[in-house]
């Protein structure tokens, strides 16, 4: 077990020590994968996005100023990568829709997921990305408005507004799905 903290490992990785990046990956890849999965709803994409996000650390190395927590900085990077991915996916889907009627991009879902979890996953996937991300960061990463504001690069007030709209919309979609079920 390496005794260095995340910041020290990041500094070593920035200085070219790729094994330090490997240790950061070991420490955080599960959490990053979960975040990617919850943001995209696609397990295969989450695999790729997790790997890409950690490699991006090397390219974004100059941007960590140490004021935020390492994980806040990391989640911001991950979130941006996921948004890029989802935007690309939407573009691809539009192009594909010209040729095919049914284009599903949802990957496999975890086994043993109960019915209610399935409903809420469906409901979450129907939220627009900017609303989904504040809910995911709050509910699963246990982050407050202030940290979410840093990650999403918006004001705290804006986070609050988005979060309130997001959960109301999620509740509405969830209820509709329940009725359909």
């Amino acid at each position, binding site marked *: 077990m390496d005794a260095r903290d995340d910041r020290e490992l990041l500094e070593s990785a920035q200085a070219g020590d790729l094994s330090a990046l490997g240790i950061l990956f070991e420490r955080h890849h599960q959490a990053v994968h979960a975040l990617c999965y919850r943001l995209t709803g696609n397990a295969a994409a989450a695999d790729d996005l997790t790997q890409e996000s950690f490699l991006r650390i090397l390219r974004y190395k100059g941007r960590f100023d140490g004021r935020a927590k390492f994980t806040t900085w990391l989640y911001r990077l991950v979130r941006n990568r996921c948004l890029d991915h989802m935007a690309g996916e939407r573009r691809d889907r539009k192009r594909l829709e010209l040729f095919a009627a049914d284009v599903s991009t949802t990957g496999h879902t975890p086994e043993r997921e109960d019915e209610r979890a399935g409903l*809420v996953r469906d409901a979450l996937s129907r939220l627009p990305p900017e609303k989904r991300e504040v809910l995911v960061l709050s509910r699963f990463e246990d982050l407050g408005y202030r940290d979410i504001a840093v990650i999403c690069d918006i004001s705290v007030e804006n986070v609050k507004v988005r979060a309130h709209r997001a959960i109301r919309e999620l509740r509405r979609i969830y209820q509709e799905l329940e009725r359909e079920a």
Partner: protein
Amino acid sequence: MKCDTAIDLVIDSLMAGPETASTRDLDAHLESCAVCAAEAVKLREVWSDLGRLRPPVVGSESLVRFGRQLERHRSASWRAIGLRAAAAVALLATGAVAGQFLGRDRSPAVVAVSAQAAEPEFLLLIRGVGLDAALPEDRLVAEYRQWAADVTERGQLVSAEKLVDDAGEWVSATPRARDEQVRAAVEGFFLVKARNYPEAVALAREHPHVAYGGTIEVRAIERP
């Protein structure tokens, strides 16, 4: 308390923790307003169900895959720094050509122990720092070969070795950054005969590695 405020407080209590909401006023409102109470129940329910959403388990293959990505990245860094693709091949070819000239075809490197002990010898340490990696490999190889042929013809080349394309390992009391090691790594060396430093430096200056931005460190071999 207005209904909108009450629902906002319910959401705040879910998202930012119960301490952010004034629960006494909220509880009083929810007791007196059935619509808000029902809405609060539904919001809490959906929030609770969100927690059921388990992510897939990430297997150990993810670590293995990332390890491979790091290896690829390490190789790419080498190319970016300079010598891997072009100069390494060139050095290898140089050694082979020098070997042929010296009658000892020992590719990938040449070792020609024809030096006379009394003659001063200099080590030309080839470093990749600054080398333009975009240079055409064929051209580099041809020019490196020509340099080796010229020096060999003049009877000045004693030996040449190309080192493996990595940063090697540094051993010191104070750990050095990997990046520093990579930048300072020696790619290969020539052992040449020259009367003095100026002559050895002149020899190094003629090497195409310098013209293309690479660095050659010239060091005299100490003789008793």
